[in-house]
């Protein structure tokens, strides 16, 4: 604590004497313990532009730095348990398909934490995010840095062709904007575009059931006028939002279960059959039923939502 105060004092002194921020930061860091000094020095390097993002804007270093916070949410806030992580291939392309709730992609990040912590060959999944989020200041930057990508067939295909692990939420806005009373009842999975994609790229489909995410923002109603004014697909009214302002965006501490189901291989169909509407609908149905069934199982197993 005293070290931190001394650090702030030196920083202010340096800034007042007219040095630039990066120089001031590194000179003020001199008195800190080694670990914190390394962190400050690294931050200075980032201010100088010395950091890497991949061509999608994913910033691994940033995500790692944010990881302790996500782990806190995973362990303490939501007391998450994950099952079946080994159903996710350790390398190569694969498409994770999960149920969805809420515009804030907590479910995508928690799936990521579950994989990184429990998988023998951990890797960050990339996730497709509702396009609307990329029109928003800050949110668009944050989402990209964490591995989010605007939802489109083109992007998903490109990522899979790069042999990435991609998470999609085919319920889309319908899933995110459903009422609290409709929780864990899967909405229609679009037109099965994600299945076409999996067949076209030969990526296995891994259904993922997420229990808990649908209680964090219990949507009781919505406001059409505010939705139109803000350009949002819907404007939710929850017990906390918008009444508490930004604080209302705090997710409720429900108990979470994440189950990765057995992978459905698609490579043996061949890319040509991506246009086979019957096969696509059949597989989509199978994925949807698997998730729905696992949702019910895990709901029973979890018991009460919040305690």
């Amino acid at each position, binding site marked *: 604590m005293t070290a931190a105060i001394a650090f702030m004092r030196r920083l202010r002194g340096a800034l007042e004497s007219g040095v630039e921020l990066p120089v001031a930061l590194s000179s003020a860091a001199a008195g800190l313990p080694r670990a914190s000094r390394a962190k400050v020095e690294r931050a200075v390097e980032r201010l100088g532009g010395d950091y890497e993002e991949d*061509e999608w*804007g994913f910033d691994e270093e940033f995500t790692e730095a944010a990881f302790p916070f996500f782990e806190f949410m995973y362990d303490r806030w939501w007391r998450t348990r994950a099952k079946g992580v080994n159903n996710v291939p350790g390398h190569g392309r694969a498409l994770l398909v999960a149920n969805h709730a809420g515009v804030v992609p907590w479910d995508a990040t928690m799936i990521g934490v579950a994989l990184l912590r429990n998988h023998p060959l951990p890797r960050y999944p990339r996730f497709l995010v509702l396009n609307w989020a990329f029109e928003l200041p800050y949110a*668009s930057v944050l989402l*990209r840095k964490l591995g989010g990508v*605007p939802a489109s067939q*083109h*992007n998903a295909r490109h990522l899979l062709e790069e042999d990435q692990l991609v998470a999609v939420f085919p319920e889309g806005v319908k899933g995110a904007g459903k009422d609290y009373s409709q929780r864990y009842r899967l909405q229609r999975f679009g037109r099965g575009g994600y299945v076409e994609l999996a067949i076209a790229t030969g990526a296995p489909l891994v259904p993922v059931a997420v229990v808990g995410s649908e209680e964090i923002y219990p949507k009781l109603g919505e406001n059409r006028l505010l939705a139109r004014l803000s350009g949002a697909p819907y404007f939710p009214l929850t017990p906390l939002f918008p009444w508490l302002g930004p604080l209302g965006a705090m997710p409720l501490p429900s108990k979470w279960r994440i189950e990765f189901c057995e992978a459905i291989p698609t490579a043996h169909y061949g890319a040509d059959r991506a246009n086979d509407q019957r096969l696509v609908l059949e597989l989509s149905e199978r994925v949807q039923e698997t998730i729905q069934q696992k949702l019910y199982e895990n709901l029973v197993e979890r018991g009460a939502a919040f305690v």
Partner: protein
Amino acid sequence: MAGRRVLITGVSTHLGAQAALRLEQDPEIEHLIGIDSVPPTAPLKRMEFIQADIREPEMLSILPETRVDMVIHNNILRRPRQGMSPQAAHDINVIGTLQLLTACEHADTIKAIVVRGSAGIYGAEPSAPQFFTEEMARLYASRTRFQRDVSEIEAYFENYARRRPDVICTMLRYQPAIGTVLNTQVTRYLAMPVLPTFLGFDPRLQFVHQHDGLEALVAAVKNPVRGAVNVASAGTIGLTRMVRLARKPSLPLPSGLFGSVVDAGRRVGLESLSDDFRRLLRYGRAVDLRRLTEEVGYRPRYTTTSALVEYLAMVRGELAPMHETAA
């Protein structure tokens, strides 16, 4: 294909002169003809210069007489020149292209046309594909005048290609260029004392290094392919990182204020930013390069990041400028 006769428009522009100098060195090209409304200042030795305005109907008589087998259309303005009205730039881009194409219809020696077009046709959109492939033009409505111009120009060429299937039409879609011998929107932006940005946005940007831009054109001249081809250096860079690498202060502005602040800056003598560039600064844009590498056969030597790092080092005088293109 030895002994080729090639005509290039817009040779007095920076890029046109660079391209002409480079094509003069190509032994396959027997005769090089350059057209522009003002004489070029570059030390061109082999090139025959014809002074003409491509907007004028005189092109109809000039072009067939040259008996060229390839036309390189390099007279599409990214932005009105100093003191030029937007209307005049639109005329040069759209009417000039139309006039040139009409002239090409009357020249039966022509086997291929290569156009130095723009990736501006894709626009810059929040939910756009991360990498535009060539068939994704016109996914969104045109939002700027330049985007509409490029779209019209491409429509003319598509029409022409349909009417004359014996002529190969290559539409090169260039990302904004960067390089020490160039004066482009990007280099002018980086030269500003303070770099205006959109508050809370960090778009993915992609540029083409002058070397890659030139060599891609040369590769397309050697090996013209039908249809559109994206041209850029590989990969993307975030605007925030670019500003930090430039070691310049940024001025993050809320989107509602951006326009008025930048316009006020222009009135006090700062650089103005085109509508297209403003949209790039907000949403960014990148293109897919598989067609360029696999079909045209040119693999970019630079990445967007390395192009930018090299450019910034040269501007600061830490690296000697290269003269390979001007040799």
